[in-house]
């Protein structure tokens, strides 16, 4: 593998563009998911909501106006090839700079405060972002962005189940989480589930599940793929519906990410993404 040097500035520019693009253009796979929800929904009120959501993402794309005023916490997953390096600085610095430029120049909302408990002063440029870096073989740099809304992120759940709780225990926990969340995460949601690892790993997996493309692509293991389908059905049977006002579609998709775990554990994490499941990526 030939090693490559990537320009710091090139990353900054790409990230700034991605922040704007993600805020304005709903990915086509998510747009299709909302259109399918509209077709499947039985409640007239929920159908009228879904129709307005379709209208909303059309206006957003046309007028370069954010799909949602909560343009999110910028969460990145980075795959960095072990044969690539930067001409200066670090990938974290480049992404942080790009985020600040993208949010300021794109008229996106700055939603981050400097200290969670005491100061709570707005950082004014939506930094710092959350960055997960994974080193992989190769000389490419792939950066994926998930602008994550506060309302749906607040609806996050972790259960350290007993291995004996099994599949049924897991389903109960996930469906209870959805019912408990009501309209808060802006359903119909995308349900990210992390199973296995440690408590922190399970949460990261649940977040990583939102990066799976295209939306509704099944888990590669057919047993988990079947569980995704069963969970989707059980979640939609809950009746929570669009914005929690009742309906037959509560989730657009369920994505499970799994990982080995300790003999004593069965960690399960649930992370919800709103219907405005924004996403952008770049490979440099």
């Amino acid at each position, binding site marked *: 593998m030939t090693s490559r040097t990537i320009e710091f500035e090139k990353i900054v520019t790409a990230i700034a563009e991605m922040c704007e693009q993600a805020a304005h253009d709903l990915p086509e796979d998510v747009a299709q998911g909302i259109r399918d929800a509209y077709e499947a929904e039985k409640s007239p009120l929920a159908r009228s909501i879904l129709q307005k959501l379709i209208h909303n993402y059309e206006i957003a794309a046309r007028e370069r106006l954010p799909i*949602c005023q909560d*343009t999110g916490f910028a969460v990145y997953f980075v795959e960095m090839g072990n044969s690539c390096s930067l001409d200066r600085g670090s990938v974290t610095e480049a992404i942080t700079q790009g985020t600040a430029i993208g949010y300021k120049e794109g008229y*996106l909302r700055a*939603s981050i405060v400097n200290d969670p408990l005491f100061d709570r002063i707005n950082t004014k440029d939506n930094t710092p972002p959350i960055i997960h870096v994974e080193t992989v073989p190769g000389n490419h740099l792939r950066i994926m962005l998930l602008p994550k809304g506060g309302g749906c992120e607040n609806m996050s759940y972790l259960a350290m189940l007993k291995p004996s709780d099994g599949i049924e225990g897991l389903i109960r926990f996930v469906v209870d989480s959805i019912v408990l969340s009501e*309209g*808060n995460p802006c359903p119909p949601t995308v349900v990210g589930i992390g199973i296995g690892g440690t408590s922190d790993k399970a949460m990261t997996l649940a977040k990583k599940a939102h990066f799976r493309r295209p939306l509704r692509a099944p888990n590669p293991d057919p047993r988990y793929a079947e569980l995704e389908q069963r969970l989707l059905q059980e979640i939609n049977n809950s*009746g929570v519906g669009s*914005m929690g006002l*009742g309906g037959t579609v509560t989730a657009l998709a369920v994505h499970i990410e799994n990982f080995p775990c300790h003999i004593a554990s069965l960690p399960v994490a649930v992370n919800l993404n709103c219907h405005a499941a924004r996403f952008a990526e770049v490979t440099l």
Partner: protein
Amino acid sequence: MNITPPLSEKVIRALHAGDQVTISGSLYTARDAAHKRLVELIEQGKDLPFDLRGRILYYVGPTPPRPGRVIGSAGPTTASRMDRYAPVLIEKAGLAGMIGKAGRGENVVEAMKRFGAVYFAAIGGAGALLSSHIIQSEIVCYEELGTEAVRRLTVENFPVITAIDSHGNSLYREGPERWGSRNSTK
């Protein structure tokens, strides 16, 4: 049905959970930080910077507008974060309506029943669409709060759903009960 604030008790009591309503006229915006300040003024026995009687508060923190636009994207935020403050505003300041997303606590519903107020749901995540119904925006107070400042918005046919009415009926309870599969054979 189209309504224009200030709302009379008669209009408030005639609204029922599930009604689709449009609002024209003026709304005031407030989120967590503005609520905290307004309630502090009331507790200190001081006047509010604007008259809330019969008025509707919209829980929103818009994106900054591009040059030439009235306002940026402007959809509702989670209403339950205002639950701690809303009953005081309903009882002491005469607040008549609130627009947000998702359910409210029992303390808010009790105040709504007792003093006559209504809670509307706007569609969360439809900030671009809702922005197109806002024709004017001016800062009333707390400019230093940025996106959380109190604004007076002039709206035209702003679409909302009566989610919890002044009689205590809640679509957050009735909707899922009706559409959940356990009841689908009814």
